């Protein structure tokens, strides 16, 4: 789909925190000089077209007492699909990307307890026979999550 200037303005705004009020879309619509119905229809359309992949609260597993960890594996080409199936079967695997490196499978584990990271990564190692390198964050320098539309 083509995004018009209004869609882009909406997209740039709604990647930031929206008002926590009984009628957040009416409040946002007023900010953007739109009607609530037009704003909701445009957000619905962008969601249907997968331009917006999710709309709602972003949770921090670490703040809930859980943890996140970036992990990487060097998966032989011939085994890639079978290893992928085993890795993705774990509900703790939140994102997974294929990347151009000897370490070619990169995924994020999100677990409800810190022990969950070790348990899941160890289970994947056992199931696949491949080392799961673990790269927990030591310092976070800024999360500029926004994409300019």
């Amino acid at each position, binding site marked *: 789909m083509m995004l018009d200037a209004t869609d882009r303005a909406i997209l740039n705004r709604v990647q930031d925190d929206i008002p926590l009020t009984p009628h957040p879309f009416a409040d946002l619509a007023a900010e953007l000089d739109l009607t609530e119905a037009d704003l909701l229809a445009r957000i619905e359309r962008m969601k249907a077209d997968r331009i917006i992949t*999710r709309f709602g*609260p972003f949770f*921090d597993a670490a703040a809930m007492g859980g943890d996140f960890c970036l992990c990487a594996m060097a998966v032989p080409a011939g085994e890639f699909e079978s290893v992928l199936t085993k890795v993705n079967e774990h509900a703790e695997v939140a994102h*997974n990307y294929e*990347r*151009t490196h000897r370490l070619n499978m*990169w995924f994020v584990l999100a677990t409800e307890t810190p022990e969950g990271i070790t348990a899941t990564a160890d289970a994947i190692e056992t199931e696949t026979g491949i080392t799961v*390198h673990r*790269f927990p964050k030591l310092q976070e320098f800024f999360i500029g*999550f926004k994409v300019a539309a």
Partner: protein
Amino acid sequence: MSTIDDTDRQIITALQGGLPLVPAPYATVAGELGIAEADLIDRISAMKQSGVIRRVAAAANHYKLGMTANGMTVWDVADDQITELGAQIGALPFVTHCYERPRARPDWPYNLFAMVHGETNDEVEEKRAQIAAILGEACVQSDILYSTRILKKTGLRLRRKG
């Protein structure tokens, strides 16, 4: 670390798929949970205060917005300079995530990760060169890993307790 109670867990479970796109979304969710809308908003507000909820917002798809090149730039930065330099790299407008992470020698000598998005690989390379210029001699080696396929993207899923 904060504690969340059973009601909070029910709220998280109800909202992890997203907020209903209706005029009064919190009233809808509160109705499903059998609690008052004002209580739901208060609890979400408390979870934002404690950091359990980072924000209520949209996640945009980089690929659909034409940002099809996505490079994870990785750098081997002197440990005694990483805090200062990491802050400078994280502040660059084209860096979307920036972290210090442990090295895993000998396979992985890099301790600074900076995610760079662009419309083309050339654009990502040009941004990578800007990072290299800032790091200067504090960085002895670097690499860039392009993503070639999204293999999974679901976000956090809480398991039901018990």
